[in-house]
């Protein structure tokens, strides 16, 4: 089936089988391998991307469902000149990754949440609830929590 999506601002026309998940379409058809796949059943969140601004599991959506929609992946986070996104800076500064396998998923999870409501970083319960969405087997999450809080401060204009 023919599908047209906008991926990181770029229009893409793909020819895919209906059974191709969004994750596989991004990795195999678009060659954007920053989106990781681990469990492929919705548990780990490694495959998290934004569809029309909302964080979703790309292993649980078919590419054909995204016809005409905007998709943003970890490759689309940094600026056009390669300047890292404040979340990427903060993950580095706070040591919020070790092996890095979960990182694209966490970055997109946090990017979606901060874009929608930056005040989530001021509410420990909501932030914790958000971060339980994804699994990290290395960091113990605390550094990820600090990184998201730091990035929220940066995004709010260095107010905190």
């Amino acid at each position, binding site marked *: *089936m023919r599908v047209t999506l906008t991926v990181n601002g770029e229009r893409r026309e793909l020819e895919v*089988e*209906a*059974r191709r*998940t969004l994750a*596989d379409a991004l990795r195999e058809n678009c060659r954007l391998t920053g989106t990781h796949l681990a469990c*492929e*059943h*919705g*548990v780990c*969140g490694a495959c*998290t991307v934004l569809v029309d601004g*909302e*964080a*979703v*599991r790309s*292993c*649980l*959506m*078919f590419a*054909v*469902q995204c016809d005409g929609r905007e998709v943003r992946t970890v490759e689309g986070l940094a600026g056009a000149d390669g300047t890292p996104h404040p979340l990427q800076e903060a993950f580095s500064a706070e040591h919020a990754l070790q092996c890095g396998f979960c990182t694209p998923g966490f970055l997109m*999870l946090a990017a*979606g*949440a901060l874009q929608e409501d930056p005040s989530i970083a001021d509410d420990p319960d909501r932030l914790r*609830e*958000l971060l*339980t*969405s*994804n*699994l990290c087997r290395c960091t113990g999450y605390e550094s990820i929590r600090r990184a998201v809080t730091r990035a929220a401060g940066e995004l709010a204009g260095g107010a905190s």
Partner: protein
Amino acid sequence: MKPTAFEYFAPRTVEEVVAALAGGDTRVLAGGQSLVLEMNYRTVRPARLVDINRVAEFTGLDAGDGVLRVRPLVRHRAFERDISAGPLGRLLSSVVHNIAHPPIRARGTMLGSLAYAHPAAEWPAVATALDAQLDLTGPDGTRTVAAEAFFAGPFDTVRRPEELLSEARLPLLPDRAGVGFVEHRRTHASFAQLAAIAALTVRDGVIDWVRLGLVNAAERPVRAHAAERALLGQPADAGTLTGAARVAGEQDADPREQPHASAGYQRHAVGVLVRRALEAAVRDAGAVGDGR
């Protein structure tokens, strides 16, 4: 971990959805948060999928005429906000935070959860406890089934394969109702091991209306009728609540032995959770009564 091939339809009207379902070996694709993972596992291999996500009229969620009408594309997430349906809205938003995670709640739907009938899912027990009415639309029109008669067992309902679950109607709760929801699970990310849902009203210290539901305490969602009888007309005090909670565990629950939880343990745990849910509901009713 890749689905088998299928034909894909994304119709825009309810008529087209119903016509497509009549084709046989066809599944509704709603949020996909249970279906797609089963297809990835290949435990489900439908010949056709009818994606309902482009049917504009399916997004409706409105309260009126004493009920909250929920259509097939209302995501779990919708209930995180105050849906201004009084105590019912309060109950639904305290339940929804226990369902999966934000990205899954952004896609998964309440009606998908009812149709899927996972034994540990929250919405089926909420619908059963509150006596929700469910509309099933097929080639011969629409029939209405009460939630208590809809669930037939784990992952099993009376919905026929060619029927769409087209609407759920949850009765609005009395204005002065207090609500409580308590869930036990092994980790925050797990499905419920057990949960209890309570809604009640108190007049002059006496419980004069009550709804009580249990999640994962039997082969299907439970409305705890015996415990409700033990509460009605009784003073809203510790003795009544504890006694009724014990009745819920002993008479309403019908748990299966599990490797890590004997039936006896589960009955005991049901009692504890029901007591806590009732206490929360009585506190909530008090807060409403105080003119909150």
